[in-house]
């Protein structure tokens, strides 16, 4: 069975030949693995037998990148969103915003909104596939090997970035909800148009990157989600949902309070299900398994122990429950950190078939 049919069945709550597999790694992890024997430049989805491919998109206003300063340990630069950033040299990790591009609604209307033109060919995609025809060809080529989705940056992440950080955008959401709502709807409209362009090119699903929570819960209340972000998420989901196609929401953190709202907005899959943030796919399956599919939840801290037996128990205990009736794609609960050796990860990748082949063995 090919990956496209496999994941298509899984996300339709059917049991194919086995559970699906997709994962993500830090750049430093790949560097370590290359030192440990991973062929340099290896296409990881092929190398580890993953089932899902995500087309990246560029929703930025495409400010020209400017490097301001390069020290021994870090550098400061302006990114494509116009935000001044500080990033470590020679190691990965999320860069830190130093100066935002916007502080209020007028700034957004002047410096971001006019540049979000979905009609420009180059806006449909990253610069790798600037024209519609290229995208259609590449979607079909990747579909020979993968279940193909398009990934868009979510409205909260977008607003968070252009405001210069979560501590800047959250007060706006509380004190100036009309401003926050306008910006999120505007970004959602743009993201929706980009996603629709890929829908027309024939992708199999949509992936929204929108980190709205941390270990202790959502950054904001369910009411705030409902008022400001729900309409934006629903708008982004709508074109895919009208075709019955799946929509994945990626968010770290404990989002249990928001799941009913996600479902109503049109989200059909949750990823990565951060284990240390109280997300447990076994419990979520019981509560929402008829309405949601799940990707991830294999604890990266367990993977980091390099204890293959412990990892095996972790995988078995989760797959045996989450995989029942389809609806589960195996993966870590976060990006794979450099503490995980290549050998360990290769063993982990084998566990997909060992524990995920249908019919599933009993639970642990």
């Amino acid at each position, binding site marked *: 069975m090919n990956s496209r049919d496999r994941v298509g069945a899984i996300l339709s709550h059917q049991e194919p030949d086995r559970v699906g597999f997709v994962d993500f790694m830090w750049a430093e992890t790949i560097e370590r693995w290359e030192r440990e024997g991973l062929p340099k430049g290896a296409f990881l989805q092929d190398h580890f037998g993953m089932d899902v491919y995500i087309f990246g998109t560029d929703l930025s206003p495409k400010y020209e990148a400017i490097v301001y300063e390069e020290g021994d340990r870090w550098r400061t630069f302006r990114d494509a969103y116009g935000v001044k950033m500080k990033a470590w040299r020679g190691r990965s990790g999320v860069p830190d915003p130093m100066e935002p591009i916007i502080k209020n609604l007028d700034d957004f209307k002047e410096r971001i909104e006019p540049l979000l033109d979905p009609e420009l060919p180059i806006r449909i995609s990253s610069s790798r596939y600037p024209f519609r025809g290229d995208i259609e060809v590449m979607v079909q080529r990747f579909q020979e090997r993968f279940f193909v989705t398009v990934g868009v940056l979510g409205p909260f992440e977008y607003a968070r970035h252009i405001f210069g*950080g979560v501590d800047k955008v959250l*007060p706006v959401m509380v004190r100036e909800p009309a401003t926050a709502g306008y910006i999120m709807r505007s970004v959602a409209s743009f993201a929706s148009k980009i996603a629709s362009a890929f829908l027309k090119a024939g992708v199999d699903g949509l992936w929204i990157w929108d980190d709205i929570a*941390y270990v202790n*819960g959502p950054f*904001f*209340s369910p009411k705030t989600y409902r008022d400001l972000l729900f309409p934006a998420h629903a708008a982004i989901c709508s074109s895919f949902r009208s075709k019955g196609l799946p929509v994945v929401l990626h968010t770290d953190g404990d989002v249990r309070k928001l799941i009913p709202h996600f479902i109503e907005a049109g989200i059909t899959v949750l990823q990565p299900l951060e284990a*240390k943030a109280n997300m447990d796919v076994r419990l979520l399956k019981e509560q929402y398994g008829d309405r949601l599919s799940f990707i991830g939840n294999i604890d*990266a*801290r367990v993977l980091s122990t390099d204890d293959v037996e412990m990892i095996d128990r972790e995988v078995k205990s989760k797959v045996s429950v989450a995989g029942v009736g389809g609806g589960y794609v195996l993966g870590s609960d976060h990006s794979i950190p450099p503490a995980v050796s290549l050998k360990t990860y290769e063993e982990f990748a084998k566990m997909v078939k060992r524990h995920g082949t249908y019919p599933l063995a009993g639970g642990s």
Partner: protein
Amino acid sequence: MVPTGEGKVAEVRDKLVALDFDGAKKAAQEALDAGVPPQQIVTKGISEGMDIVGRKFEQSEYFLSELIVAGEIAKEVMQLLQPHLKGVEIKKLGRVVVGTVRGDLHDIGKNIVAMMLDTAGFEVIDLGSDVPAESFVEAIKKHKPDIVGMSALLTVTMTEMANVIEQLKKNGLRDKVKVIVGGAPLTEEYAKSIGADAYGRDAVQGVDICKSWVAR
């Protein structure tokens, strides 16, 4: 009938809890105009208000967004009171040095903790982010704090906390301070394993732990 001054101080507290920016500042000004000592507005208005906000956060009535806004209001009211506090001694609960460890630029959690410690009545020395172990050592020698708080957001940087504690031991400082750690990748077990005195699950719990230490 509650005297006007006390009523206004209670209003500062209540407006802060209600996240009413303008209302809190107006009530603080009116309290000053009514002759309320500014230090009373700090302790009974701001500190008590932030305490209530902390309880609402623990009960999931308030979230990180409301915590940050309350902190902003507290900061603005403090700025209003600052000129009136010159020469007035407000007894501090204790002194805390905080910082995000070397290799880590994330400071939101640390900033929220620093803000809540400040409004709770602690003197806070904030070393910023990407703080090497030597800087923690120097700060402890210089400021002689009661407590040191360290934050990290990455699994690759939280290991630096163990290094800081090791340096405190080498410099004969470990038994002179209490050490509290926090951040997304941390756990209670990890904090124990590196020899920290406590792990703060969130800013509110962290402040409660610090208060319990200085109360002894």
